[in-house]
């Protein structure tokens, strides 16, 4: 049920916030063992929050998220509630502070049902690298959810929450949203404070929203966006009001189709579904323009170099000295950090740390990190050229539908290449939204992405909303 509907029911006292919260908690308790979308469920805390929210509703509070139950990705710090990043190294880590987004959600009266599963430290596209076990796709539990916000997207798809916060560094909100048949919004870099989001790649990370529809994502973004004095990279340009253009005529809007996103490696049924959506827009009065992004072929390499370099540095603080896992026996400081990190991190995280440090080593820095930064500038330039001609860009979200668990995880390079459709958006810091636009022969959802100009979330939300109203979504059968 859409947030607006839930809000109406709460406001009309058709249901109490606590009842609503408990109904989700019961569903989680009954069905999540199959899905494994939550790492921590706040059975007591959520009900308490709901009761507080109810008091506010009773005293006339009309805040849209008051009493609305949400799930939070487990890399967002929640004061007093375990925040693990799905890693052994933070298995028992309880933050002493709330992320800025949590402060905002708490102030808005939202209810946190629990913390969702993910790829360890958000590194991955399958949600199978979690220390707490992989996440299963609610459409077909033998398939992956995508990742890294697989728990967030599965929790929305399975009806284990009204909406979810995820994080998106290279597609981590949009790709699992596509695989799970829900809507995922990755805001402009700087639109949402990163304070309290445990960093993977600081220059690319952005907290995003997963929901049943574009409007739900926009409503949550309205609450969490904005300049934050605690995050120097957050921006005054994030103005909110992200639902303001919903319902406007689509006539004359210019939609760019970058040809490189529809080429080799994209499955034909994905291509077909996205082109169908393009035709929907054409029929609605939009102008379709073929555009080009020649540097796309370098994007995945540049993305993995930059993100791994930043990750290697960001993850250095996990040394067993201050918090988190510490090896049982070590005779020296060097042995302590070596063993702690060897035992505490999973393989994929170690792979990125090695790759990142290699790219930053003196002697290799120019060849790797600097060249990647140059490609980054090129991609930003190519997006700017496209946005001279277009209002938004339409692309597939992922080359394929969700694959079988165990099918791809052993081939990291193949996994990395599957990020081709999403990484450029992070590299350029742009907003994008993914929504289902079809189903494959395997009955799994297919996603398309609308990419907008920086801080123009209202535009992509409105275009996405118009499409969603015409598209018949399949519900998860449970």
């Amino acid at each position, binding site marked *: 049920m859409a947030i607006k509907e839930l809000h109406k029911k709460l406001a009309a006292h058709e249901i109490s916030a606590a009842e609503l919260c408990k109904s989700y908690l019961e569903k989680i308790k009954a069905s999540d063992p199959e899905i494994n979308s939550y790492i921590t469920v706040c059975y007591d805390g959520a009900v308490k929050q709901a009761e507080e929210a109810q008091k506010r509703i009773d005293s006339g509070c009309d805040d849209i998220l008051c009493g609305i139950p949400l799930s939070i990705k487990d890399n967002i710090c929640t004061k007093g509630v375990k925040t693990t990043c799905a890693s052994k190294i933070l298995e028992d880590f309880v933050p002493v502070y709330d992320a800025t987004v949590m402060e905002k959600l708490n102030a808005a009266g939202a209810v946190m049902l629990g913390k969702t599963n993910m790829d360890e430290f958000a590194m991955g596209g399958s949600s199978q690298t979690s220390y707490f076990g992989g996440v299963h796709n609610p459409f077909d539990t033998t398939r992956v959810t995508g990742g890294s916000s697989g728990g967030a997207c599965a929790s929305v798809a399975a009806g284990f929450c009204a909406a979810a916060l995820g994080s998106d560094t290279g597609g981590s909100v949009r790709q699992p949203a596509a695989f799970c048949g829900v809507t995922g919004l990755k805001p402009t870099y700087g639109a949402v404070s*990163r304070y309290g989001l445990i960093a993977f790649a*600081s220059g690319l990370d952005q907290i995003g929203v997963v929901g049943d529809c574009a409007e739900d994502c926009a409503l949550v973004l309205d609450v969490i966006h904005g300049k934050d004095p605690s995050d120097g990279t957050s921006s005054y340009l994030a103005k909110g009001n992200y639902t303001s253009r919903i319902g406007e005529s689509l006539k004359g809007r210019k939609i760019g189709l970058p040809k490189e996103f529809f080429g080799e490696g994209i499955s034909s049924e994905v291509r077909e579904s996205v082109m169908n959506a393009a035709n929907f827009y054409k029929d609605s009065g939009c102008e379709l323009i073929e555009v080009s992004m020649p540097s796309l072929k370098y994007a995945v390499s540049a993305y993995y170099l930059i993100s791994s370099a930043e990750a290697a540095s960001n993850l250095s603080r996990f040394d067993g000295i201050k918090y988190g896992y510490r090896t049982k026996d070590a005779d020296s400081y060097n042995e302590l950090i070596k063993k702690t990190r060897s035992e505490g991190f999973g393989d994929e995280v170690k792979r990125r740390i090695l790759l990142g440090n290699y790219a930053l080593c003196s002697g290799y820095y120019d060849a790797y990190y600097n060249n990647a930064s140059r490609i980054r500038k090129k991609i930003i330039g190519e997006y700017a050229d496209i946005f001279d001609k277009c209002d938004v860009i339409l692309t597939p979200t992922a080359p394929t539908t969700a694959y079988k668990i165990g099918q791809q995880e052993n081939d990291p390079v193949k996994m990395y290449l599957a990020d081709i459709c999403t990484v450029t958006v992070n590299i350029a810091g742009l907003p994008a939204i993914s929504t289902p636009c079809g189903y494959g022969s395997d009955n799994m959802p297919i996603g398309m992405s609308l990419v907008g100009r920086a801080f123009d979330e209202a535009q992509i939300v409105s275009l996405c909303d118009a499409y969603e109203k015409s598209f018949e979504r399949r519900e998860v059968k449970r």
Partner: protein
Amino acid sequence: MRYVPVIGLEIHAEMLTNSKVFCGCANEFGGAQNDRVCPRCSGMPGTLPVVNQGAVMLAARAGFALECTVNNYSAFDRKNYFYPDLPKAYQITQFQYPICTNGHIRVCDTDIRINRIHIEEDAGKLVHDDYEGISMADYNRCGVPLIEIVTEPDFRTVEQVQRFVEEIALRLKYAGVCDSRMEQGSLRVDVNISIMPEGSSEFGTRAEIKNLNSVKAIGRAIEYEISRQSEILDKGGTVVQETRRFNDNHGDTKALRSKEEAHDYRYFPEPDIPPVYISDEELDEIRRSMPEMPNMRFKRYTEEYSLPAEDAGLIIANKAFSDFYDAAVKIYPSYKQVSNLMLVELNRCLNDSGLSAEDLKFSPENLAALVKMSDDGVISKNAAKDILRTMFESGKDPETIAKEQNLIMSNDTGELEAIVDKVIAENQDSVESYKSGNQKVFGFLMGQVIRFAGKGANPKLAKDILMKKIND
């Protein structure tokens, strides 16, 4: 063989901001361990650094104080290495785009070039408990804002290095950037030193001596290194590039780690902090707010005020003292007299009491008035010293003190003449003796006059009258 040392410095100075450079914790010295620590400076997951604009401002002031170019654009980088006193396992510093570049300071008639000044954060401290066999981390110092001043290898003598460090310490104090308390570690010096045969222009392999915390230690460490490296070369050996630690008790240096063991810091642009832009207008504003630097004051004192170099040097050595002097001579420009009174009498008071020039109870106006009274002959020079001491203790103005202590010199000729007549009448023998050529007796007679006339008597006037009457 005779060798010439080639020396370059890296100076770390803690900046006098109220809070730390990337969080709101207080920037103070001392206190209980881990008393000034928050999620940010202890590197808790998810926290982000936010630049303290006050630190940027002070770093810019350091740039102007040390005659650097202060750049409109600067940016932060990460320096990555593991150490338990570094909670994030990287230090935020400025590598590629430092805030200041291209400075120069003249000492001992030599131009010393400053390559750069950059902003960075300090690390914490480890406390080792040998009894328990454990080490503990104190993060109070984590995130204390530093500037690092890097010179070119332009020094050739110990004297140049020591004068340079003193000059830097003083200028940073004048600019309000650093309190320059080397003994507390707020100013620390790393010395890079190599030697080359006299007449050569090819630099040798350098050693880096870390964390010297007094001008004297810098001198001793350099002397030791010169002899150590000379000995190696004389024996046909080669100096190894390495980092060394100076031991103040033994007066020697010991190797810490060699070049091979040196870290690869894997610097890269800090993605959590946007670059720093300072507009030309802002830079102008900072420049206009800069106080006169001690070297310019020295020039003014010696050239315009004609003070001896030694006196000028003593005055500028303490900014508050020098400010006080400037304020006093602005009111009453008796440069030498004000200087004398401050350097001798006031300094004696300060030394005796242990107070500093900031603590003075009286104003520059009071001091100017006192010197004027002395110059005008209202009080005697000796009385001026006594009055200054009373001013120092009580904060009263000099006129009041002079009156209370009856130190205003009497210029009443009639009264003095009467006294002189009386002294002559009562000491006829001495008068005769003087007249017959015994000049020494005049002193005795003057003493008698002052005895009757009291301290307030104008000694010059008394002398004139006595001389006149005795010769009549």
